[in-house]
């Protein structure tokens, strides 16, 4: 029976026969052609960012790490570093994860925190590239330090795998404060709060 089913599946999956005609081609575009020139690609890829260049070295020496740390010391001064944990949750959860937890649209692809970290215990599709952030508030990290750790992780852990969210403008300073609250607020599900 399995063999029969497989046969049916095989037949059903056959791609359409290619046109037998080779002289003329149908005029259609499969997808829009991307128009970036080699020159533009090169400028984008070999980005003029000293810290990034240093971290591209195959051997990350003490000197490199020290220099990258020095280069990563610019932070915006804010009046407060604790934002709104609910907005932080919207940034941290992808739309798929958000829908799974709350059954309604929400979330965003801006933070992608769960790609590398586990945190909210209800989320089981989480990575282990970085440490688990479950009950992060118990670590006693001050809001300003946590803000800096998300805004530019290379200030603490040079050349680490974590993107420099604030430095690159992937997140605004305000958005980073929301993530700080998501990790520190006792009401946040990360710290066992019941949303």
């Amino acid at each position, binding site marked *: 029976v*399995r063999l029969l*089913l*497989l046969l*049916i*599946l*095989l037949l*059903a*999956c*056959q*791609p359409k026969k*290619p046109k037998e005609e*080779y002289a003329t*081609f149908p*005029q*259609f*575009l*499969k997808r829009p052609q*991307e128009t*970036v*020139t*080699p020159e*533009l*690609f*090169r*400028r*984008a*890829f*070999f*980005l003029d960012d000293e810290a*990034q260049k240093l*971290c*591209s*070295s*195959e051997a990350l020496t003490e000197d490199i790490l020290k220099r990258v740390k020095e280069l990563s010391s610019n932070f915006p001064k804010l009046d407060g570093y604790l934002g709104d944990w609910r907005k932080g949750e919207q940034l941290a959860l992808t739309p798929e994860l958000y829908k799974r937890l709350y059954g309604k649209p929400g979330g965003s692809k801006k933070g992608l925190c*769960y*790609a*590398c970290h586990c945190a909210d215990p209800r989320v089981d*599709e*989480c*990575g*282990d*590239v970085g440490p688990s952030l479950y009950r992060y508030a118990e670590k006693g990290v001050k809001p300003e330090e946590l803000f800096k750790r998300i805004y530019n992780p290379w200030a603490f852990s040079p*050349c680490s*795998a*974590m*993107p*420099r969210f604030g430095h*690159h*403008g*992937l997140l605004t300073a305000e958005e980073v404060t929301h993530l700080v609250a998501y990790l520190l607020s006792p009401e946040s599900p990360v710290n066992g709060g019941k949303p």
Partner: protein
Amino acid sequence: MLLLLLLLTALSFSQEALTRVGLQSARVVLERGKEYYLKLTGGSKLTCADCHGPDGESLKGAYARMPRFYTDLGRVADADLRVLSCLRQYLRLEDERLKSRERELVVPLVGFVASLSNGELVFVELRHPEEKRLYELGRTVWYRRSGATDFSCALCHERLAGKQFFAEVLPAPIPDRAPARYPAYSVKRDELLTLEDKLRDCFERYLLYDPKKGRFSFESRVRKPPYYVEELIALELFLMHSVNGSTLSVPGVIK
């Protein structure tokens, strides 16, 4: 009814069965490549087979040595660029005909040519100075951190390989000898991907800056490098050289 059958089949079969289905679909693309090889002609009225023999005998083993320096092109080419250059220079396909369907012709041909080397060992040499230069460039590209994510190929596929990223395990293509299985059929996308296609797609993950604005912007970021750009071919050269000695086995199947 058919859908139900499909669903049942999908549920009752293992990864192995999926692979078989994938291989079957991939072979159809390779067959199309063979048809192009035999019949496709342009201004010169020549076909690929006119120069390389009706069964491609003279191309056996060629793919296992690519990318490599080609005197007639004056540059290092991967299979994709080699095939495209043949279509242009020797078959003399008109630009108009190539413009919109370039990849649709090149990819099946690359698949067919690659399959002629099945069972051969990957043997990419660094003899010509350009091959050496591109190997070093490829190595640089592999380790270069870039874009708004600060990613590099090596970061995820060497330093963090084996770690979990969402629900996926980050693969280690060099120890896994993955480049020796390209062109590979993507079950999810239902198309054959050459190594160049696959590597080119990876660059989207970097979230590259908009070089005109000098900063990152979701709207105007550079998504992928242009086809056949030197950096892409260099990366292929670096990877294929890294898996020298592996048995070529195409088409591979990826998710």
